[in-house]
């Protein structure tokens, strides 16, 4: 029997969007921790670790997210860790976010002028203290707009979790579509929900970026 697409079906999609949000939030937090470690290792000159972090970033950014999810999903079930799509999606998206945030934050750290490091060293601060008190606070300002921008990319990326069978918004769309057979309406509704989640973040990212540019211009004007 074909069901109608009613407010109930729309409500089902909205509820499924909670899983999209949850998946994004967990991967963002996990990726934040992972990305921080990757970025710190990447800018350090620790011999085996810095190139390893660089390779991790290269693989994370140079392969499709879908392949990463497949490898985690099938790899975890081979190792008999778990064959659960939720765990695999969380783990896969966390690794993906670690690579991207690691690269974004590496760039931000390296965008802090060399002189800042030198000044901190001249104050007899050790390497961790140079990072903690001088470099990272400045890098954080630079990192904020692209980090929010990446959150949009991550939110959209969670849709691929539907392919390994986790029921979030896109998978819910397939379920509703199979029951109602109104693909145009269903996918338009789903696209609208994604848009409502992502657009405010995109606007925020753009706003932060513009503000940073103005701040940069002010600093330069001040120096002159």
């Amino acid at each position: 029997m074909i069901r109608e697409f009613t407010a109930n079906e729309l409500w089902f999609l909205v509820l499924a969007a909670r899983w999209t949000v949850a998946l994004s939030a967990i991967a963002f937090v996990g990726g934040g921790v992972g990305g921080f470690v990757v970025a710190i290792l990447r800018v350090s000159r620790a011999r085996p670790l810095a190139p390893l972090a660089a390779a991790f970033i290269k693989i994370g950014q140079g392969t499709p997210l879908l392949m990463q999810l497949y490898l985690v999903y099938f790899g975890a079930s081979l190792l008999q860790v778990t064959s659960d799509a939720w765990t695999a999606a969380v783990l896969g998206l966390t690794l993906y976010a670690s690579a991207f945030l690691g690269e974004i934050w590496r760039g931000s750290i390296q965008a802090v002028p060399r002189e800042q490091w030198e000044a901190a060293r001249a104050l007899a601060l050790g390497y961790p203290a140079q990072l903690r008190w001088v470099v990272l606070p400045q890098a954080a300002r630079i990192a904020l707009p692209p980090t929010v921008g990446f959150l949009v990319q991550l939110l959209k990326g969670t849709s691929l979790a539907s392919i390994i069978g986790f029921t979030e918004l896109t998978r819910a769309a397939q379920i509703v579509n199979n029951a109602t057979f109104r693909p145009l309406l269903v996918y338009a509704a789903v696209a609208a929900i994604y848009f409502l989640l992502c657009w405010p973040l995109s606007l925020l990212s753009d706003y932060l970026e513009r503000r940073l540019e103005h701040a940069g211009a002010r600093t330069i004007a001040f120096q002159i």
Partner: protein
Amino acid sequence: MGYVFQFGAVWREMDALLLGAWLTVRLSALAMVFGLAVGVAGALALASRWRGVRALGRAYVEAIRNTPFLVQVLFVYLGLPSIGLRLRPDQAALLAMVINLGAYATEIVRAGVKAVPHGQLEAGTALGLSPWQLFRFVVWLPALRAVFPALGSQFILVMLASSVVSVISAEELTAVADTIVARNFRSFEVYLIVTGMYLAMCLVFQAAFAGLHRVLFARWGDAEAR
């Protein structure tokens, strides 16, 4: 763990996988060409005199950039037939990729045109150049040079994102991998090799674009130094 990895089962399928890789590159290149055309149209729309056209361009860019590519693919392949546009999987995949890329290309093209110093445009106008001549002799080369790296990374992003079109069984590398997995059940081995192939393609194209950038624009650096 009692699992024995069997990569031999994958090597036997290497011909099919290499064909898949070629299809991925071809699909991405086609999407890039048409997507750039859409990008030029989009950039023109955003710079239009008419407010409605500008708003339309902006709506297109924002709608695409804030929704997942997978949903766009499913919308084109499953949704459009109900308004009479029935496409084969490969056509739907290409269309979705072009629509998606067009939005990002719009921003890239716009950045390129912006990179041309305003004084040069004024100088060109003062010489009595027509808009087409202005574009041909003043704008397009410096614009291309400014956005060449962005175009290169966009191509690689498109290539990686194209693995998603395997969900509608469009012919490309990931779809070939899915077919092989369905036959020999060596999912981890197959996807591991295919991931390596994507990485290799990514590195090769990155190096190629960097080399091309040097070759194409090397003389320019000299000219500016003088």
